[in-house]
């Protein structure tokens, strides 16, 4: 979707707020939200559906509220949509269903167990498919001119542009369908774009921008 989240190349956001702050969390609630996001995922959710739910936050909230706050709102929306909680329960501040609805509460995990889970969470998104890749390394390709109303990972700034296949990444789960609940693999490539191809002010620049793009975003030059 051509949403507020698609920020690449947009202008008017001002200078970077550079700081040397190395703390992972600046407020206690940021850490709580990080932890919630790690251990409370509705069954059947995909990372792309979660991302799409974040993209669907109203622009005023997406830009105006703190980063981890947008995670909390995304979690709320995925939990409500999947039937884990209701707007009425949020208003009431408590569960309005019987205790037994979800079975036994999970037992507490220790630091070591969490570290082990992080290690096991090295999830691979590539897999085997029967078709062979259409494009070869070094080949010129053109990106699709338009996106669609759903989730996609072809940013607006890189649409209708010519690039060069720089590497083949394997067949990865296609996010546009995964955000709608269907996990199918599709060939994915790293594509190099000359900055001058993307931006009028970059004329004459030798700088490059690299994106990882799925085959259906691309066509031969």
């Amino acid at each position: 979707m051509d949403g507020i989240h698609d920020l690449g190349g947009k202008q008017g956001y001002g200078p970077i707020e550079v700081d040397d702050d190395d703390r992972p969390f600046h407020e206690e609630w940021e850490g709580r939200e990080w932890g919630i996001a790690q251990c409370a995922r509705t069954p059947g959710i995909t990372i792309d559906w979660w991302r799409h739910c974040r993209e669907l936050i109203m622009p005023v909230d997406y830009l105006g509220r703190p980063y981890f706050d947008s995670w909390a709102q995304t979690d709320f929306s995925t939990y409500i949509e999947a039937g884990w909680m209701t707007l009425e329960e949020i208003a009431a501040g408590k569960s309005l269903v019987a205790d037994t609805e979800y079975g036994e509460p999970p037992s507490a995990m220790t630091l070591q167990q969490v570290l082990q889970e992080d290690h096991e969470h090295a999830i691979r998104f590539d897999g085997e498919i029967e078709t062979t890749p259409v494009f070869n390394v070094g080949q010129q390709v053109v990106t699709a001119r338009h996106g669609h109303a759903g989730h996609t990972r072809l940013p607006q700034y890189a649409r209708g542009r010519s690039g060069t296949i720089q590497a083949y990444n394997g067949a990865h789960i296609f996010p546009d369908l995964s955000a709608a609940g269907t996990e199918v693999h599709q060939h994915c490539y790293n594509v190099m774009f000359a900055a001058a191809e993307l931006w009028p002010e970059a004329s004459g620049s030798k700088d490059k921008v690299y994106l990882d793009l799925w085959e259906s975003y691309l066509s031969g030059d």
Partner: protein
Amino acid sequence: MPDFDAKKVAEIHQHLHSHLPSEPALRVKALETLLVDKGLVNPQTIDAWIEAYTEEIGPKRGARVVAKAWTDPEFKQRLLDDAPAAIDELGYLGKATAHLKVVENTDEVHNLVVCTLCSCYPFSILGIAPAWYKAAAYRSRAVRDPRGVLAEFGVDIDDGVEVRVWDSTAELRYLVMPQRPAGSEDMSEDELAELVTRNSMIGTDRDLGRE
């Protein structure tokens, strides 16, 4: 199970916009309270995740990877060829690093990493991303005005150096390998790891030196 109903989610966001408390701490408290009340989450597990990403998992891991690559050419080659396997040797493989790619700075090339569409980041080797990395200013400008962005970090790139920006649009994650500082030949891996800044592994820092 989700219904994957985007229209419904848009309506939920509109409702939450009007009905959630404004204060983020209260919103997250409400979320946790409901999850615990429903028996879906154990609050001590949340504590453990916070501890993991405060005390154990962070940019010190990435710095160790870089310092080892500087001192061990065979490890460096394995890292460039198959980064997930190489970082697994150190026990650092984990969240968001299963498709890690390492891009190397040279005298001729400077690499910079961004996620313009959300805020993808190689958690298990760099920890929680800095605030600026997740902010609209960096996400919008890194792909369009990388030299201007770098200048704001105090990094001036010579005209002869090519800037390569990596926009994390898929499940691949990027780690920049900064150049080993000149004059550091006598330093141990431990000492070198101290020189590697978090920003240098994102690409918003370039010339590392003895402090």
